[in-house]
């Protein structure tokens, strides 16, 4: 579904991703772990199409289509979703109105009619329950004055509403207490299916106790230096990232 090949990306002249290769198939959950500064958030942003990043070489394809040629909204319409590490506050735009627009923009792209109001509301209620988000929250301006936990739950709620094929979760666990973490993870787990896939980016193993990945990759210095099954996450947790740093810091750029 998602194929990233030898991706090299720089920001303001500094190379961050130095030849990253990754394949994600339908029905799979991949975790990307790594120390601070390894390029985790850059990867998430580049997949979503943020313009501050310069792709020097390599490719990102999604269902065979070249994503690098598409704008962020077109990527979303193709079925990609990014849950932000720091969701943005948008004053004056209610979550519910915004989602109605988003859902219908995506439907229009696929040549579908706008969703009936009744169907939209049914779906809204159903997905609200999933992440235990109160109705008054969706009636408020998007993320404005939300607590950290509410913002993260709102990301998963939006994901549930938009029903993407591939969701990239960028440090969704950061700043969450254990209860909020559990709610977010339950939300994600209930959305897992044979048709979709998840790319979970995280610094800590904690989230992976709740969202159990099929594959774990270690990102270090702009490359994936180690891949394995979920046990790799536990190994990282017990040993820390220092052994990775020692082992791979000698690699020439």
């Amino acid at each position, binding site marked *: 579904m998602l194929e990233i090949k030898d991706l090299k990306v720089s920001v303001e002249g500094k190379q961050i991703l130095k030849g990253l290769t990754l394949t994600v198939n339908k029905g799979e959950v991949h975790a990307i772990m790594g120390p601070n500064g390894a390029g985790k958030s850059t990867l998430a942003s580049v997949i*979503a*199409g*943020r*313009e501050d990043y310069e792709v020097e070489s390599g490719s990102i394809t999604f269902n065979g289509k070249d994503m690098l040629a598409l*704008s*962020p*909204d*077109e*990527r*979303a*319409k193709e079925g990609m*979703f*990014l849950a*932000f590490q720091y*969701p*943005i506050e*948008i*004053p*004056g*735009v209610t979550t519910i109105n*915004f*989602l109605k*627009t*988003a859902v219908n*923009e*995506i439907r229009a*792209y696929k040549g579908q009619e706008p969703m009936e109001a009744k169907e939209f509301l049914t779906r809204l209620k159903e997905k609200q329950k999933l992440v235990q988000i109160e109705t008054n929250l969706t009636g408020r*301006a998007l993320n404005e004055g939300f607590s950290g936990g509410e913002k993260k739950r709102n990301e998963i709620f*939006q994901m549930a509403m*938009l029903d993407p094929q591939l969701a990239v979760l960028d440090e969704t666990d950061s700043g969450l207490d254990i209860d909020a973490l559990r709610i977010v993870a339950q939300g994600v787990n209930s959305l897992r299916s044979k048709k979709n896939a998840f790319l979970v980016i995280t610094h800590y193993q904690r989230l992976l106790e709740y969202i159990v990945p099929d594959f774990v990759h270690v990102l270090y210095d702009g490359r994936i230096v180690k891949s394995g099954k979920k046990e790799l996450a536990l190994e990282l947790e017990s040993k820390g990232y220092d052994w990775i740093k020692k082992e791979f810091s000698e690699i020439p750029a």
Partner: protein
Amino acid sequence: MSVATGKKEVATKWLEEFELTTANRLGASNGAVKTKQEKAIKDFAEIGVPNKKLEDFKYTNVSLYLNDAYTTKAAATRLKSSDVRHLFIGGHVSIVMINGRFVKELSNLKNLPKEVTVKNLFTVLKESKEMEAMHFNGQLENKDNPLVMLNTALAYDGIYISIPAGFECKGPLHIVNISAGNSKSLYNPRNVIKVGEGASFTLIESYQSVELTEKVFTNSVTEITVEKDATMNDYILQDEDAMAYQNNVHQVTVGTAGKFNSVTVSLNGGMVRNDLNVAINGENCEIHMHGLFMAKDGQHIDNHTLVEHNVPNCYSNESYKGIISDGGTGVFNGKIFVNQDAQKTNAYQSNKNILLGDKATINTKPQLEIYADDVKCSHGTTTGMLDKDALFYLQTRGLNETLAKKILLGAFTQEISDNIIDDAFRKYIEGKIQSHIA
């Protein structure tokens, strides 16, 4: 001809005009007014048409706009009812003013409450002699604004609205100001509005152009008195053609426990300069002033505001927002003045601007002058491009860049338009704003 003395030469023309129009000016109605007009033209001659050397006009050089062959003769217009009706909103009482003159035949006064007086100012001054003349120019004489002086001197007529004490005027009254005609003209309309003790009143002022084929400069002054315990809402829409220039002064005086709420939305016009002056003269007043200005290519929109806290225990809150596109210029100058006696004043001011291109210009200047020691006052101003992070966030949800921008600007403007309580006018204005953003 030397350029440096241009303003005085421009002024000379209006001194001549003053002599020629004696029989047609407001002074012909009332001896006290005649005296005030004679004083005003002398004061004006001292200063002349403002140019950028005058601090209050530093960013709006009016002499550039008032240097053409204007006359004060009313242009002949043959507007019919069908030409103006599309400007009426929500079935409200509509007072049509063409080039600053009340045109009763084209107005819709069917639902005007019998308690409310709507008349030509000329007639009112003629009928009531000294009493009304006392109010005429009372609060403005010390403002040293040459354009107010010019208006006072040359004013010929305008509208007079009076809401009697204790009367709650349910529906708004809409003054439909229209610029029309085919001759270069300077108009000096003068309006007087009184909201009596304990009364409440909502005024809508729209400024639009119909079949305008030559430049006009409308130099309008409106004097508003909100008496003790009275409430007034004043909603203003400026949406004129590029050939229409406008200097619009509102002088508002608020008495004890009075409330005044204004929303000023400036969307189009060759040049717009607004002065909104609010003098708080009684305790426990509450003042809200909101503004939105959107200047596009070649447009210049200037909002000057002044809140004078003259007495203790009053609250004022001001929020103006600007959206400036390439080639447009915006000016905001907001002054809060707190008199030595005005203890326990709460005064807040904010000005936020979005620049949509690198050829957009904004000049913003908040001013606080505080002479009392026990007050809460704050001001803040921000200017920037549209938030890139917010744009990206919306795009990742499937909204294209154009739509995402429209939504963000819509939310930015809505914080102002939300303050318009009249549903019909709010929807009308939101529609105008939306099409302006698109």
